[in-house]
């Protein structure tokens, strides 16, 4: 079970887990989303579980839920680069709607 895999690193918006032959990065904002297909995510060029999210107009958009980075090509530090980019993207989005009121 993916749920039971050891967590190598986690952020506010991601988990990186230790799979048998892959390092698995999960998008925490997509928890519970039904997996509709598993195919290559062309942005990152690794296999990904994908689901569909409908926007305000009802249009469905394919979104990756988790990515499988093969251990023979990726180590943790390389996956972290993608994880931190995702963390940065979601943090920026959150700031748009719920900015810190420090100043």
């Amino acid at each position, binding site marked *: 079970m993916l749920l039971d895999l050891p967590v190598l690193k986690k952020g506010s918006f991601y988990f990186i887990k230790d799979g048998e032959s892959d390092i698995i990065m999960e998008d925490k904002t997509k928890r519970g989303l039904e997996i509709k297909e598993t195919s290559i995510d062309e942005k990152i060029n690794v296999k990904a579980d994908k689901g569909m999210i409908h926007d305000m107009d009802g*249009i*469905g958009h394919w979104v990756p839920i988790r990515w499988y980075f093969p251990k023979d090509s990726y180590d943790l530090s390389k996956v972290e680069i993608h994880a931190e980019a995702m963390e940065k993207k979601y943090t920026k989005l959150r700031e748009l709607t719920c900015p810190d009121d420090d100043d």
Partner: protein
Amino acid sequence: MIFLLFLGKTIKYENKSVQIMSYAHPEVLVDTEWVSQNPPNENRKLVEVDYDPVNGYQKGHINGASLIWWKRDINDPVTRDIISKKEFEALMSKNGITADTEVILYGDFNNWFAAFVFWVFKIYGHENLKIMNGGRKKWELESKDYTTDEPQIASTKYIAQPPDEGLRAYLFDVSRGIGKEDTVMVDVRSPAEFTGTITAPPEYPMEHAQRGGHIPDANNIPWATAVNDADGTFKAVEELRQNYEPKGVTPDKDVICYCRIGERSSHSWFVLKYLLGYPKVRNYDGSWTEWGNMIGNPVEK
């Protein structure tokens, strides 16, 4: 020897009377085979109703079908409401429909949005209206053809009837119905939504409410219990009766259906009103995204 005594009611088979239950209004349904044999013409229009036309109509639709996009065409663009009579008339005219046209609706998502549009058509008094049983799902299961060609449609001048508000329940109707013996609420959402475990599935992040749960005393009879899982067609009349009556949803009651945004509930509204023939059924299209967001509304979990 077989005697057909009354269409769809009783047949005599080898001198025995056999009761055949039929839908109360079988004329509101056509099957996929009938549609494939009866293409649209001047007096018959085929309309696909989609929630997601990019992944539906635009990828392929039945030859000759026009599109009603639920979000864009049937809802007011600013206020949360269905379109006005005038806007409905313009939509019909654009789709080449007159008040006498036979209109066949079908769509994505198990005909949920086709049923919603059926409900809106009935609000504005369109008489000759049908749903293709099973929608896109059944058509695709049967590997029937699609086209990406859009039909050339000559516009018409459509005159609608004043809105029949008896088909629609508003917030105050629902509030007033709570605790009344003669009113029954049918919550057609999934059990997880009904119990408040979730307010919307992850696929619909725009449709959440501030509170999870259901309207007090509502019965949870998910929309899906009215259809055959294999092909999305409606269940037989006796199965439908067994689905609703044991839960107190009986024809002598004022029935109000609701879901999250009013589309799945119009599917159940269609079943109760047209397939079972209940005299008083209303769709509460405000549904949970209205009820679960209102300050002070009672919520049961």
